[in-house]
């Protein structure tokens, strides 16, 4: 298939070759493509690439800021945890002091109460002893008289009260 022959045939008015380009289509394709290329180069593409670069920079900046914020967050958290631990220690100390003073106070009160009880017990004991001594001394006289009179009545005669008394006293003492 000779190109010159084909072109000659086309000039003669035969059906055009589907592979050979038409001159008007070449012209329009060249005009529109070169127009698009020029527009793309000077009008359409620069703003978009600039915007994309700006956005990439902004995102990078924001990411750096976020990293910095994360770092400062770490130090803030450490500070906070430190102060929290301090406060906890202080509270523990206060509680311990309160507990100590309460213990102290309780033991003091207890000691006082113990002392009072001991005092009361001691006085009660002495009263009891006193009463017993009184009762003993009172009872020995009455018992001697009763026994002498009872014995006198039994023997039918009046016994020497003085001699009997000493015998009874001896008996009581021996008892």
């Amino acid at each position: 298939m000779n190109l010159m022959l084909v072109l000659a045939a086309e000039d003669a008015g035969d059906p055009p070759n589907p592979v050979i380009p038409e001159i008007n289509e070449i012209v329009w394709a060249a005009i529109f493509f070169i127009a698009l290329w020029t527009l793309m180069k000077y009008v359409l593409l620069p703003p978009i690439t600039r915007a994309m670069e700006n956005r990439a920079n902004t995102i990078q900046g924001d990411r750096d800021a976020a990293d910095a914020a994360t770092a400062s967050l770490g130090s803030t958290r450490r500070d906070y945890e430190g102060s929290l631990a301090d406060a906890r220690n202080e509270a523990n100390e206060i509680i311990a002091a309160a507990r100590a003073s309460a213990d102290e106070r309780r033991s003091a009160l207890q000691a006082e109460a113990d002392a009072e009880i001991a005092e009361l017990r001691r006085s009660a004991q002495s009263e009891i002893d006193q009463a017993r001594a009184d009762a003993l001394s009172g009872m020995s006289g009455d018992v001697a008289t009763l026994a002498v009179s009872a014995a006198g009545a039994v023997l039918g005669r009046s016994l020497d009260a003085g001699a009997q008394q000493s015998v009874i006293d001896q008996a009581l003492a021996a008892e």
Partner: protein
Amino acid sequence: MSTLSQLAALAAEADTTAADDAKNAAAAQGAGYAYGLAAIGPGIGIGYLVGQAVQAMARQPESAGQVQTTMFLGIAFTEALALIGFVVFILLKFV
């Protein structure tokens, strides 16, 4: 115009139509062979190429993008032969 010359003209016309028909039939046959033969090599080639590319992508999935781009390039180069066969087909069949 005499009857004889009319007959002669008719006979000549019939001869040219027959010759055109024979030529068209030969062209159609040639077009079929041209495209059929032109499609064999690229068919085998593209099959082999894509098979190897798939194997490469399966072995190293992380390089799939690179392999894919190269695969398309290879297909484009291989396919050119079949497409030239197709153009020959168009030229034989329709011109």
